[in-house]
């Protein structure tokens, strides 16, 4: 398979799946009413055009689910229908539906088949995961909205055109699942991807995992002034639109095909956490979630928290709220018993309704009359009998009409979303409420769903930079495996193992690309263990292949990604830096002198005599000559001072090599105005060994000696370029 497309294949496919061949006649079922199977005729596997037409049918309107279960013989007798012949139990086949999972590399698939079970939505969907070393990262999702389902006595075959969250090269899907006797274990599903012309591509063998389409963690806590929380309500207690049955929050979602695993670890939350007014604000609820939700993490995950609380700041009219609309959203909700409390049937019904309604928001469902506000929009359904409606605002006759028609279910389209929505649109902590995108949501920069790499990555930077100051960031890699783990010493983008993504004030996201790449050798590997638990390096990210990355005032968000020797990819949390606008007229004048392509190149290279950078050098000279006290003057001094310290060879047009000798006097004057050059030079001179050893000693000294006496941006630049600077200082003769 291609390493960038789970549907593609790079080696020849062993099995010959030519749709033009084959002799099986199958009964093709075009999806119509749920649970109904209307044969439209017999289509042979040879009839490729007919198959293509079937698979191209638009998704039909999904009908409301019919009653649960099949009619049994006793019911048929009551209707006067002929008794069905007794079917030996061994001949009864297991229904084919639920969640399946593949193994292997470099991609794994979690497949959801929803065509043959109770209340099927006639969809199949899948989430794809990239396996890299010891990390598993979500890659993307797929859904087939109009599959052609062919059922024989021995198998179910599902064909369809998939919709993918990426440009899949093989978007057609063919899933084959053997039908086995009821008492046999469920059979595995084979999913083949095909090109639009029918060429078979990537194949996944997916073992059956669960009859639930998704499984998640559900944790409930209660406030200390809420002694009894909702447990269960029997829908037959009052008029309703569906079969009478006891329903809990967990069983309501089970009917929707979602398995909610309760953690069983119920916290009692003190009223004091709601503040002096003893009522909850959204911020207090979020803090409560962080404090008490045992599974809370700032990452997308299938886990949700529900707090049974007393009252919100908005008063007793607010019965519940999905309060989590910051950071990784939709991970928590709350219900309020000041308005909900009571043991009467209507109160119990309202408690159930509110709990499931708020959890529905956590699944990223909008109210029934506001579906058009979703991104992308959908038609509003104000008359929907759904958990996501308001009974008291029901336009079809108010609360009495709503309750008498409500079957205690999500509507059909909401079921499709919950079961088969693209993962980021549904998972808690995924896309924001209503859907959105951000740096954190770049598919390839997602937090891994599983990380056994033994590493943790941090990205640190000064919180603010003056306009024009070189932006640097420290990349720190932590080893969390007590046995020790080998990593690369070099943690800067120019060495290849680390990438840094930069989201600018305008929202544009760019990957920092260095001007030059430096190769690393095996000798550059180190071990992170108890003696050396972390290693850090400073990266210069101000200027590179795409020019200046921080040339606009405003807030930038940064994220680093490290590729370990075993292929694992580790992503840092997002770090925010702010570039201040020019504050004075002099700031603007100096900015005009430093923001030029040649000046940026000189900053990257820490100086050069190249004739192509002459005007850049002239501009930098003007910075420290005409604005000697400006903070950017020190940057110019470092650039030109280091260059003055080096011997520079220029190849002339006639191929003659002209050598410009070092100018230690100028170097010492310029560099000495910025930091203690002599101290670093002395350390280098005292180092035993060859020039390389002295240069390394100077570089190490620069990393440690530059400190609070220097502005953070200058100190960062010296650390980021310590090897270049140290190399020249180490050989700088004292005057």
């Amino acid at each position, binding site marked *: 398979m291609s390493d960038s497309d789970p549907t593609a294949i790079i080696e020849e496919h062993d099995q010959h799946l030519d749709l033009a061949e084959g002799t099986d006649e199958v009964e093709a079922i075009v999806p119509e009413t749920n649970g109904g199977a209307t044969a439209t005729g017999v289509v042979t596997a040879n009839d490729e055009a007919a198959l293509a037409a079937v698979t191209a049918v638009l998704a039909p309107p999904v009908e409301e689910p019919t009653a649960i279960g099949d009619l049994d013989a006793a019911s048929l007798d009551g209707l006067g229908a002929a008794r069905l012949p007794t079917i030996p139990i061994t001949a009864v086949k297991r229904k084919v539906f639920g969640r399946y999972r593949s193994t292997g590399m470099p991609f794994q698939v979690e497949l959801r088949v929803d065509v043959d079970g109770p209340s099927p939505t006639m969809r199949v969907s899948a989430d794809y995961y990239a396996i890299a070393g010891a990390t598993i990262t979500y890659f993307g999702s797929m859904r087939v909205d109009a599959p052609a389902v062919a059922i024989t006595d021995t198998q179910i075959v599902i064909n369809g055109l998939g919709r993918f969250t990426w440009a899949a090269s093989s978007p057609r899907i063919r899933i084959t699942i053997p039908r086995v006797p009821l008492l046999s274990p469920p059979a595995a599903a084979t999913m083949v991807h095909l090109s639009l012309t029918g060429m078979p591509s990537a194949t996944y063998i997916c073992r059956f995992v669960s009859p639930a389409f998704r499984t998640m963690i559900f944790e409930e806590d209660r406030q200390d002034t809420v002694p009894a929380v909702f447990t269960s309500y029997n829908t037959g207690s009052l008029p309703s639109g569906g079969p009478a049955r006891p329903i809990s929050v967990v069983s309501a979602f089970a009917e929707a095909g979602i398995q909610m695993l309760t953690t069983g670890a119920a916290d009692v939350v003190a009223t004091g956490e709601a503040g002096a007014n003893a009522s909850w604000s959204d911020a207090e609820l979020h803090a409560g979630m962080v404090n008490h939700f045992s599974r809370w993490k700032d990452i997308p995950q299938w886990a949700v928290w529900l707090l049974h609380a007393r009252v919100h700041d908005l008063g007793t009219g607010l*019965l519940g709220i999905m309060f989590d609309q910051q950071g990784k959203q939709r991970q928590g909700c709350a219900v309020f018993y000041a308005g909900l409390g009571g043991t009467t049937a209507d109160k119990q019904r309202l408690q159930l309704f509110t709990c499931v309604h708020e959890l529905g928001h956590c699944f990223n469902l909008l109210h029934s009359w506001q579906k058009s506000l979703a991104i992308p929009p959908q038609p509003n359904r104000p008359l929907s009998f759904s958990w996501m409606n308001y009974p*008291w605002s029901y336009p079809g006759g108010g609360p009495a009409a709503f309750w008498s028609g409500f079957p205690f279910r999500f509507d059909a389209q909401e079921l499709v979303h919950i079961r088969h929505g693209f993962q980021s649109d549904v998972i808690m902590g995924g896309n924001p409420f209503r859907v959105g995108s951000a740096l954190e949501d770049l598919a390839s920069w997602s937090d891994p769903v599983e990380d056994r790499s033994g590493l943790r990555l941090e990205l640190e930077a000064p919180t603010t930079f003056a306009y024009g100051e070189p932006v640097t960031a420290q990349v720190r890699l932590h080893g969390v495996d007590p046995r020790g783990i080998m990593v690369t010493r070099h943690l800067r983008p120019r060495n290849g193992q680390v990438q840094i993504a930069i989201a600018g004030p305008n929202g544009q996201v760019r990957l920092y690309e260095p001007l030059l790449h430096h190769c690393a050798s095996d000798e550059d590997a180190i071990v992170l263990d108890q003696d050396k638990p972390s290693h850090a390096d400073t990266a210069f990210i101000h200027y590179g292949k795409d020019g200046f990355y921080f040339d606009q005032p405003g807030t930038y968000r940064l994220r680093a990604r490290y590729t370990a020797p075993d292929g694992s990819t580790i992503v840092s949390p997002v770090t925010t830096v702010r570039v201040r606008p020019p504050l004075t007229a002099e700031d603007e004048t100096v900015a005009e002198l430093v923001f030029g392509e040649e000046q940026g190149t000189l900053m990257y290279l820490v100086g050069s005599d190249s004739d192509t950078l002459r005007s850049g050098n002239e501009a930098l000279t003007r910075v420290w000559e005409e604005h000697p006290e400006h903070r950017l003057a020190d940057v110019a001094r470092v650039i030109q001072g280091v260059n003055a310290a080096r011997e520079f060879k220029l190849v002339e047009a006639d191929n003659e090599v002209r050598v410009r000798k070092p100018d230690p006097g100028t170097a010492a004057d310029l560099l000495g105005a910025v930091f203690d050059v002599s101290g670093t030079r002395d350390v280098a001179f005292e180092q035993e060994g060859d020039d390389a050893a002295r240069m390394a000693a100077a570089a190490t000294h620069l990393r440690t000696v530059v400190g609070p006496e220097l502005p953070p941006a200058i100190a960062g630049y010296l650390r980021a370029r310590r090897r270049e600077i140290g190399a020249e200082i180490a050989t700088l003769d004292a005057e």
Partner: protein
Amino acid sequence: MPTVTVDLQDGFDDDVVEVWLGGERRWREDSVTTNLAISLAASVPLEAEAGESELRVAMPSRGVEAAQQLAVEQDVTVAVNLADDGLRLEPLGERPYYL
């Protein structure tokens, strides 16, 4: 003294909203946005003199406004929604619930 509660519900998106009661501006907010999780942007309680009074809601940022004559004898809630056809004010028989 009865309270007129003005519930700004759906349709508000970073809007300037003014609430006038009895010819007097009683409330103004510069950035009113509906919280789609509860379909409520703001709930504005206003003490009112018993008797007839005009409630007017204006959105200067959009150039729309609407008014409703109220007979204030006891606490009353007025739901305000911004739809495609403009602002709608609807006195409610009882306090609404939100979730």
